C-alpha cells in the first residue's frame, strides 16, 4: 500500500462515521406511569366491579374507558398538579350516576434517555370527590403515594 491507498482508505472511513445516530425515541423505555385504581365493596371490602363505568377527563371530549371493571389504569395530566375525572356508573341506563373526582399530586421529572427525554413520576397528595346529592363513590384510600410504576394499584375506591 502506498500513500494514496492509505489516504483513500481514510477517506472511505470518513463516510462511515460522519453520520450522527438518529434521535428517535424507541418505546422500549418505561414511559410516565398511569394511576391504577382498584374498586372494592364499601361494606365487605372485597373486590367489586363497577358496572358500565365510563371515565373521561373533565373538559375532554374523548372517553378514557367504557365498560365493567374492578380495576383501571388512567393517565394523569403531566402539565398540572391536579387531574380531574368524571366517573359515571351505569352510564347506559336510567340509573346513571356521575361523580367528579380530583387527584392532587406533586410531579417529578426523571431522565430517561437522549431520544426520549424525561418521564414524569407523581406523589399523590389527596383525592377529592365532589359532593353531590347521590355519590356512588363512598370512600377513597391512597395505598401507595408515590406513582413510579404500574405493578400494583395506587388507590382504592370503595363503592
Amino acid at each position, binding site marked *: 500500500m502506498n*500513500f*494514496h491507498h*492509505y*489516504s483513500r482508505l*481514510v*477517506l472511505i*472511513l*470518513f*463516510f462511515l*462515521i*460522519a*453520520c*450522527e*445516530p438518529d*434521535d428517535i*425515541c424507541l*418505546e422500549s*423505555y418505561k*414511559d*410516565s406511569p*398511569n394511576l391504577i385504581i382498584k374498586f372494592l365493596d364499601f361494606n365487605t371490602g372485597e373486590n367489586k366491579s363497577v358496572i358500565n363505568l365510563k371515565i373521561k*377527563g373533565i373538559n*375532554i371530549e*374523548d372517553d*378514557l374507558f367504557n365498560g365493567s371493571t374492578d380495576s383501571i389504569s388512567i*393517565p*394523569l*395530566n*403531566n*402539565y398540572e398538579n391536579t*387531574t380531574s375525572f368524571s366517573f359515571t356508573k351505569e352510564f347506559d341506563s336510567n340509573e346513571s350516576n356521575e361523580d367528579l373526582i380530583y387527584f392532587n399530586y406533586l410531579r417529578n*421529572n*426523571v*431522565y*430517561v*434517555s*437522549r*431520544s*426520549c*427525554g*424525561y*418521564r*414524569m413520576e407523581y406523589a399523590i397528595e389527596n383525592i377529592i370527590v365532589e359532593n353531590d346529592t347521590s355519590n356512588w363513590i363512598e370512600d377513597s384510600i391512597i395505598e401507595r403515594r408515590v406513582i413510579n410504576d404500574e405493578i400494583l394499584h395506587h388507590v382504592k375506591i370503595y363503592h
Partner: protein
Amino acid sequence: MMKFYTMLRYITKLITILILSIGTSQENVVLDQNIKLQDSFKIEQKYGIRVGVDLSKQIRMLTEDYTGVSLYADLRIKERIFIVAELGNDDKRINNENLNSKFSGNYIKAGFNYNFYNNPLGLENEIYFGFRFAASKFKSEVYDYLVYDLDKYWGQGRIEDYKEYNDLDANWIELMLGFNTKISKNIFMGASLRLNRMISQKSPDNFGNLFIPGFNIVTEDNKFGTGITYSIIYRIPIIKK
C-alpha cells in the same frame, strides 16, 4: 433527510479539498525529487515544532448548531515519533423532538503519533497511528422537554424547566489513524479518524452526558465514540538535523 443532504454536501466539499491537496503534494514531490537528485548524498531530515488548527470544526459550524476551535502542536522527537498535544473548546446544542440541551467546555489531549510510512527520498508525508489521553471539563444545560408519555390523553406541550449542571468531567483514550501530507514548504494538511474509549465520566443525577467536548457524541450505553479531524499544520522552521 435535510441533515443527510447537508452532511453529504460537507463530505463532498471535504473530499474535493483533500483530493486537491493530495494532487498538489504530488507535483511538489516531482520537483523535490529533481532537486534531491542533484545532491543525492545529503538527505536532510527536519525536526521541529509544528502548530495547527483542526478545520473540521469550522466546517461543522456551517452545518450544525455548534461552535468550537481546536489547536494542535507536535514535536518530532525520533525519526518516526511525534509528541502531540491538542487543546480545544466545543459548544454543541442537541435538539431533538423530546429534548433541547447544550453541552460546552474545554478539553486537552496529549499523546504521540507513530509514522509508519516509508517516505521515498525527499518526501515528508506521514501515515500514522496515534494514541491520546484526553480530559474534558464541561457543563450541560437543559432548556425544555416533552414529557415521555405514550398515551397522550391530556395533550402534549413542552415543559420549560431550565437546569444547569456545572463541574462535569470526563477522561478517555483515543486510538487514531491519519495522514499528513506536505503541500508546500513547511505547510502540511492532514486528516485523522479516531476511536475513543471512555475511561470515566461524571454525569448529573437527573440527566446524561449526550455530548462531551473533545469526545464528541456519546451514544447510549456505549463507552465508544468516534471523531474526525481535518487539519492544516505549519512547521516552525527552527530546528534542523
